[in-house]
Each structure stands twice: as C-alpha cells, then as structure tokens.
C-alpha cells in the first residue's frame, strides 16, 4: 500500500524568457539572420555568441515523494510552479534537470474540455475526450451511461457540442474526466465550473474518487476544498518546496507566508498580474473604519474604507477589490468599472483610490484583499493577498452579528415577520 507512486528527485524546469523563448526570434527570417550572425561571429572569433542566457526556473531542486493512495494538495502563489509541476508529471513537457519516477497510469485533468470538438456530437466527444484522457474504448463503453447521467445531457447526446450552452459543455467535460480511472490523478483547479449545485456534485465526485485508494494530486486556490479532500499538502514557492506535511500545518504556513508577503513592501513582490504594464503599481492597501482609526481592524456592521495607495495617477484609473476569507474563498468583489452615480473622481485625492463600504457585512474573522488596478485602458497591476484585516464582532442594522457557530460569512440588514 505504501509503495511510492511518484518519486521526484532534484527536478527542475526552465523556460527561456522572451516572446517565443529560445533564440529571441519568432519568425524564420530572424532565426536565420541570428544563426548566420552567430556563425560569422564565431568565424571571426569576436566574443561569445549573441545568445542571451535569460531563463526562468519555474521549478528547481524539487524533491517530493508521494505514496500510492495519498491524496495530496498542491498550493502556492500564482507562478509558484504548481501547474508546471503537473505538466511535467503528466508528460506534457519535459523537465530540464533531475527526474520524476511515476508508477501507474496517469490521468490528468489540467483543463476541462480539452480536445472537445465543436462539430462533433456529445456522444462522439465523449469517446474522443475519453481516449484523450487515457481511457480505453471498452472502459468508456462501460461507463457511458453513467457519464451521460452525471452530465445531465441525455436529450442532447446527438447534438453537436457547438450548440451546447457553456454550462452543458462544461458539465459534459467534467463528467468524462470524473469517470476516468487512472491510478494517479492530477487535477488542476477544475472544480470551479458550472452552477453551484453542479459544483457540489463535482466535489462529491472528487471526494469519492479520493476515497477509492487512488493517488491524487490536487491543485487549488480554494483552501476549503483542499482541506476537505487532502491529507497532505505541499506548499510551493518560487519553484521550491516551502512546506510539506499535514493539511492543517501547511495551510497555516501558507497563510502566514501570504500575510508576511502582504505586510512587507508590496512593490517588492514579483507575483504580479500586471502583464508588464505596471505604469502604476499598488504600494499599500489599508482598511480602516474612518480617517485616523486603527489600521486593518474594522467592526462588522460599521462603515469601513479601503484605501489603495498607488505609485502613479493615470488617466481613467479603475480598481477592483475582492475580499477573500481565510480559506481562500472569495466573498465579494467591488469593481469601480461598474459605476454608480455616487462615485466621484477627485483631482485633489492624490495617488490613492478609496472604496467606502457603508456597513461592512462580514462576520468576525480574518480576511484578505486581492486587488486589480487598471489605467490607460490596461490592467496595470494585480496582487493576490495584498492586504489582511481583522473584523471584530459588531451590530448590523441594530441586530448583533453572529459570532460563532453560524454558517456563512456575511451579515446583511434584514427584518423578520413572525407570528405572535
């Protein structure tokens, strides 16, 4: 039972930077020019070739051992190397150094609906997609009815997939994938599809799969799902293993890491989503009840102001803030692009953006803020976990906000009508 399923030794994966990578040339002509220039340079022995060694190590010196039957969660920032690791393990791309030994048939689910062809019918796509994911025809036949039932598409089985609603095709894709029976299953954040009831159903299915003694590696940003499905969690950071152990302690160290990243100078962080624009960057985010109040401590049901300090004021700046609970589950997004008559643009404001919340609808606990900054009609900057704040128990519209034992994360003003 405890024979190893995946054994990773000193694994590294390197990507060349630049538009197409490799030679910094993306058309044949540039490549030929480049080659001939290099040859010339070599011939006259004038210095080293012009090739620039600019690499990004997506993974480096990775050592992980996973026993068969383990259900392991893989967490980390954007760009920590999680997806790259799954790609190496599923043989889509080769490692640049080290090795990984994989014992058993691998099924990977890096994106739902891979290989769906819009012109083919649901039935045809089930067979195509199934075999792409590594199922044998006999297996697909055996589980065909189950797949169709799970996806809830009986009536549309012989309709081309291009006429499906997006919900339908996603359901079908997940259904095929969920009925895979590999010994090792690699899953990359695919549960966030479909409507709420289908998400629940998929989660139950994943749980069932995890309990069947298969080895599962599971990448997700949703720590609640990770916590529910996995026994062990590996935390990646900059392509290296930062923590590896029981769910609770690893998630804790991940959260601590997130917080220390948020408390440090945000401008130092490299895990940004600005796609290189970054004419203006997020410097600091603070949450307070009012001007002069304690930073980063607010009370439920009271007003709160989120202040985003930026480096530069640009034309047409917009800002999007997402409040996420301590398990990584997003609760709400506030987006200045969806405007209200009461929004103002203020010349005197300086390099900052303020978002005022009339009555903070949050239960006591610790929350984080993800931010996306736009300006000059580009996404300028983006940071996950840019700031953390604590919410203290309060009163919402005259009614105390439940402190513990309540389900959910939100408190809203409401009134009851009860029989006397």
């Amino acid at each position: 039972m405890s024979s190893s399923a995946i054994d990773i030794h000193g694994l590294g994966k390197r990507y060349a930077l630049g538009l197409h990578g490799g030679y910094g040339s993306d058309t044949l002509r540039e490549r030929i020019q480049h080659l001939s220039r290099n040859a010339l340079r070599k011939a006259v022995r004038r210095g080293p070739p012009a090739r620039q060694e600019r690499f990004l190590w997506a993974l480096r010196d990775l050592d992980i051992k996973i026993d068969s039957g383990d259900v392991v969660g893989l967490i980390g920032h954007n760009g920590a190397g999680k997806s790259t690791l799954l790609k190496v393990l599923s043989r889509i791309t080769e490692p640049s150094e080290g090795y990984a030994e994989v014992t058993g048939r691998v099924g990977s689910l890096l994106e739902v609906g891979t290989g769906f062809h819009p012109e083919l019918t649901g039935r045809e796509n089930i067979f195509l997609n199934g075999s792409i994911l590594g199922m044998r025809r006999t297996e697909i036949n055996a589980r065909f009815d189950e797949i169709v039932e799970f996806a809830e598409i009986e009536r549309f089985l012989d309709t081309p997939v291009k006429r499906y609603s997006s919900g339908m095709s996603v359901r079908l894709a997940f259904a095929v994938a969920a009925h895979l029976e590999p010994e090792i299953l690699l899953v990359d954040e695919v549960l966030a599809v479909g409507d709420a009831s289908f998400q629940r159903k998929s989660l139950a299915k994943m749980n069932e799969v995890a309990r069947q003694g298969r080895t599962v590696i599971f990448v997700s940003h949703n720590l609640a799902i990770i916590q529910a499905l996995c026994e062990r969690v590996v935390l990646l950071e900059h392509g290296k293993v930062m923590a590896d152990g029981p769910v609770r302690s690893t998630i804790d160290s991940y959260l601590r890491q997130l917080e220390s990243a948020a408390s440090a100078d945000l401008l130092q962080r490299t895990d940004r989503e600005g796609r290189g624009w970054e004419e203006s960057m997020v410097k600091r985010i603070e949450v307070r009840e009012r001007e002069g109040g304690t930073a980063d401590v607010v009370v439920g049901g009271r007003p709160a102001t989120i202040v985003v300090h930026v480096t530069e004021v640009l034309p047409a700046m917009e800002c999007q803030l997402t409040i996420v609970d301590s398990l990584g589950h997003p609760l709400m997004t506030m987006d200045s692009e969806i405007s209200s008559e009461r929004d103002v643009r203020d010349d005197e404001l300086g390099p900052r953006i303020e978002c005022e919340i009339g009555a903070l609808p949050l239960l006591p606990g610790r929350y984080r803020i993800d931010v996306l900054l736009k300006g000059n009609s580009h996404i300028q900057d983006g940071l996950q976990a840019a700031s953390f704040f604590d919410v203290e128990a309060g009163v919402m519209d005259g009614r105390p906000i439940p402190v513990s034992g309540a389900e959910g994360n939100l408190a809203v003003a409401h009134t009851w009508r009860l029989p006397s």
Partner: protein
Amino acid sequence: MRELGVASAGPIPILPKPMQTETAQPPAAIAPTMTSETIRLQPTSGFSRVLSPHELWRYRELALQIAVRDITVRYRQTALGAAWAVLQPVGFMIVFTLFFGHLAGVASDGLPYALFSLSGLVPWTYFATVLLLSAESLVNNSALVSKVYFPRIFVPAGVVAAGLVDLGISLVILLVVVFVSGFVPSAAILFLPLLVAMAMLTALGVGAALAAVNVRYRDVRYVIPFAIQMWLFATPVAYPSSLIGEPWRTVSALNPMVGVVEGFRWATLGTGDAPLAMIGVSALSACVLFVAGLAYFDRVERGFADFV
C-alpha cells in the same frame, strides 16, 4: 455554497452525502497489474518517443479516435459532403484538359487527355490535401498538445489516415471513368496499395517535419501552399514523364510523387510499360523522407508544449 464558509479547525462539513448510491460498481476496476510500470521522466535526447513502438501501441486507441474525428469533422455541415472528394480532382481535370490538353496540346502518352490527367490528379489531390492539413495539424490542435500527453505524431498521422477515405471515393470514380472509357485495368492494379503507401509515407514524413517547424515558426503556413504548387509542376500530373529523356526520367523519380503518379496511371489504366524503375526509386526516396521527417519530428517533439 454555504458549506465552505466555516473557518474553524477540523474537518469542514463541505461534502453532502454521496450523490449516487455506490451500488453500481465496486471501485475495484483499477486493475493495477497490467499498467503499474514505472516511467522515469527526465531530460532526454535523441530518439525516445515517436519511434518507440511500445509507446505508439499503448496509445493506439487514441490514434484511431483522432483519425475518426478528422474524418467525421471533415464534411460535417457541408452541403455537398463527400462529393468534395470527387469535385476537386474532377474540377482540375476539366481545367487541365481545357488548357493543357486542348489549348497547349500537351502530350498524354496516347491516352485521352482527360483520363490521363484524372489518373494523376487522384493520387496528387490526396497527397496535396493531407500534406497541407498535416503541416497545420499541430498548431490547429494546440489546445490538445499543451494539455495532454500522447505521442504527438498521431496528430499529423491522423490527418494522413483520414484522407484515405477521400482517396477511396475518388479512386472508385476514377475506375468507373476508366471502365466507361473502354479501358480495363490489368493485374498491375495490385500495385495500388504500394503506391498509396508511398504517398502516405511521403506526406507523413514531410508533413510531420513541417508541422514541427510550424510550431516554432508560423512562416511555414505561408510557404506551404506555394511549395505545393511548385511540387505539382515537378510531378507529371499535367504532362507525361516520357517528355523527359532517360536517365533524367528515372532520376526525377527521386521526387516520390513521380513514381506514385506514373504508377497510378499504369496500374489503373493498364496501358504502357511498367514504370518499375521509377516506382523503385520513388519508394526508396519516400522511405528516406519518411524516416528523416519523423526523426526531425522526434527531436523537437519534447518542446512542442512550450512553444505551441
């Protein structure tokens, strides 16, 4: 999803009861015995994947599925469907007959020019179509290539195999025309499978190599239609190779399509001398192109997912 909210320690009541009663099948179907081999993933060099028959065999069902997909998709939502397989060579035949046959008076080895050109156009159309499609195949399937592992050669190979259906249809039409025109194929018709195989090897070798280059340099897509035109004129489709004197006629068969087209004419019409020398040279040349193309494909295959 209210179950997700509780931030307290301990297991989260995230999961409802299992949706389906687990009566249908016990989870015993994993069958670890046959597949539990250990694969070592590490940086590789040289020939490792494509030319590993073991690997190809493991994924044989996928190869079939890809070919079936290519065939199915080809004429879906087209008004004329499989008739296109016939219209193309017949259309070219009419044009060629008009311009080369009548206006230019190109020789046709004593055969009716229409029949002469059709018998060359049938294999040529197959070759040109699958060459073009297979060169584009990896880029067109980039979603697949960057998300799943399988021997990538199946993508261009699927195209080459799928084209056989069209070839079959147009071949039947050709034979009907041959009979109607009063010709009877001789036993030479038994050469057809060999000739088709030569066209396939050439298309796959060249197509796979071009597909691999196309992943890195999209210039290829502009070069190919042009190159195929050139190749058509280097092949005796519109003119007989007898216009070329020996020994150059045999040397020209280094272009594998020379042997294929001349062979097709001889095998279906049952006239003229057996162009065995040309077929031999072309067969050899086809094999060389095939091996070289696959070797190149194999060498660059490992990088596809990083570039496509």
